[in-house]
């Protein structure tokens, strides 16, 4: 029996509508004792007091009430004038759910685990000399590219990661060439990204990137002292090499062809403005204020425990305040995580960010082909493997075909459990439409893919960021800046 047989049709609501309004499904979240955010399944929101919320729910909100029309136009209620409300709501909901049917768009190729750095928070890197053991072979690469093109997604983004991927540049060239050949027939929107520390950025690499319109992503943790402390290189010249690399990419490929990411360690917390200034000085226009991931060496070296969620949230909020101030003074700088959430709040589209999706984006939005052909459901899943846990390994390109990999029990079971709408606490949460689920994170930190959200860093982090964004949206000056960050 399909869904259509299980409910009453629109006629049955006419009695309610002739004398008041019909409540439409929504959830709410308390921001402060008298300030609530009500959100619905299509991501519309209302800011209301507790009393107004009670009136709304109890069916006693009068048409003369200041939020009545807003509640109606944003599909929280429908009355006798709302003849197309349900169709519109259904259409918007379907549009919002559409990305799921697109399936995997981001394909991460770990072409080498070798790296010239010895970063204390890194999960995966291996020694420089182990060429044969930790580099991807042509045979593995060919099979992985073929799998990537089996994804039904209209857009395919291939991201090269490591270790340091440029240590295996020949295989990057091979994968690009294989993909372009396959794409003559496939005609997908094809994009390439190299995530690199830029040490091995030669003229040959730059020319190749220019020819194939390849985007570069790098890491810049802040000023020289922090960057070199977080990301040590034997010659202590990591910062300078990164800056030289950023400048070379900017002048050869264009300023819009490079973005940098930073990772927050305990050293970063007291150096906020210096970190952001570093981005401005280097003419970078996007920054991603990321907390430390709980995987691998980051746990072993006790880096994760050094700062807690409150400290990190304060850091994030102060960072945002400073970044907004810079924007208002005329320097465009977008904070990426905020941009993703803002896009969910202010538009009907979903940017498909792996960690902010329900069901989770693992396998659906992103998949990882490791150097040895193992396939993982997400980048974090392969990091977990480096800690000795293969829970989220989907299979291997040499032994499994597309169907076996993407209908594996581990992927399907995890996806099912990652539907936040059925997870305790998330199912009632007013922020769910902007949040998501992160099964690998919850498995790594709590031993359970669903996770106890009241104790989860992920939940607390998202709650505090989303609440803060709503606060900022109320201030016209900040709102203007935030609106310019929408993706």
């Amino acid at each position: 029996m399909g869904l259509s047989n299980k409910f009453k049709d629109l006629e049955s609501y006419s009695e309610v509508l002739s004398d008041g309004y019909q409540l439409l499904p929504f959830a709410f979240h308390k921001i402060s004792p008298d300030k609530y955010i009500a959100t619905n399944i299509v991501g519309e929101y209302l800011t209301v007091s507790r009393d107004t919320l009670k009136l709304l729910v109890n069916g006693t909100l009068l048409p003369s009430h200041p939020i009545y029309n807003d509640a109606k136009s944003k599909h929280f209620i429908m009355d006798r004038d709302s003849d197309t409300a349900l169709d519109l709501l259904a259409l918007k909901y379907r549009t919002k759910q559409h990305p799921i049917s697109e399936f995997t768009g981001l394909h991460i190729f770990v072409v080498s685990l070798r790296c010239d750095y010895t970063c204390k928070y890194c999960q995966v890197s291996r020694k420089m000399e182990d060429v044969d053991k930790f580099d991807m072979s042509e045979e593995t690469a060919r099979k992985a590219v073929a799998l990537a093109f089996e994804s039904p997604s209209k857009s395919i983004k291939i991201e090269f990661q490591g270790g340091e991927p440029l240590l295996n540049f020949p295989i990057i060239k091979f994968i690009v060439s294989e993909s372009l050949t396959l794409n003559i027939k496939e005609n997908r929107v094809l994009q390439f990204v190299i995530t690199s520390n830029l040490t091995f950025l030669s003229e040959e690499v730059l020319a190749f990137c220019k020819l194939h319109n390849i985007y570069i992503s790098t890491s810049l943790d802040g000023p020289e002292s922090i960057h070199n402390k977080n990301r040590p290189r034997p010659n202590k010249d990591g910062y300078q090499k990164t800056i030289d690399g950023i400048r070379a990419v900017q002048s050869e490929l264009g300023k819009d062809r490079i973005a940098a990411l930073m990772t927050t360690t305990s050293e970063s917390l007291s150096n906020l403005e210096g970190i952001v200034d570093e981005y401005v000085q280097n003419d970078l226009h996007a920054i991603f204020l990321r907390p430390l991931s709980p995987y691998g060496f980051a746990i072993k070296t006790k880096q994760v425990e050094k700062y807690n969620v409150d400290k990190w949230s304060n850091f994030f909020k102060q960072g945002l305040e400073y970044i907004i101030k810079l924007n208002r003074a005329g320097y465009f700088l977008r904070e990426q995580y905020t941009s993703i959430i803002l896009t969910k709040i202010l538009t009907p589209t979903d940017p498909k960010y792996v960690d902010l999706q329900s069901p989770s984006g693992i396998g659906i939005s992103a998949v990882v082909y490791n150097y040895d052909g193992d396939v993982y459901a997400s980048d974090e899943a392969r990091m977990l493997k480096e800690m000795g846990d293969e829970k989220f390994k989907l299979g291997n390109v040499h032994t499994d075909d597309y169907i076996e990999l993407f209908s594996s029990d581990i992927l399907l079971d995890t996806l099912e459990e990652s539907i936040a709408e059925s997870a305790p606490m998330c199912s009632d949460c007013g922020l769910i439409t902007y949040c998501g689920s992160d099964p690998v994170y919850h498995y790594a930190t709590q031993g359970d893919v669903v996770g106890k959200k009241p104790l989860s860093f992920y939940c607390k982090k998202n709650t505090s960021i989303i609440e803060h964004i709503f606060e900022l949206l109320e201030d016209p000056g900040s709102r203007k800046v935030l609106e310019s960050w929408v993706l």
Partner: protein
Amino acid sequence: MGFIHMNDVIITDRSPFELELSLEVYSLETCKKACYALMEFVSCKISTSSDKLLIEVHPTPDCTKGEEELKALLFDELLDYSLRETIAEKTDSIRTLILSNAFSKSKLVDS
């Protein structure tokens, strides 16, 4: 219950306490959800007898909140979750109608 001051160090008294609620006011489901949401601070043993709900509240070892603050938090959560329950009851069938409309062109729904 409350705070005990010892040589200027504040130690929170973490003795368990009980709350008795009417099942006519709060459902068992609402009560469970409210307690779950506060698991960072308390673990609760919930039982029912005829028209009553009994919650035995045990502050967690790291909890720094006193009994009154915990009670206030619990009542806030209870009120919010019962309001959510009302929304769910009032919108249950229309939610199904919306989902059905949304996917009516897919093979998920019988025509």
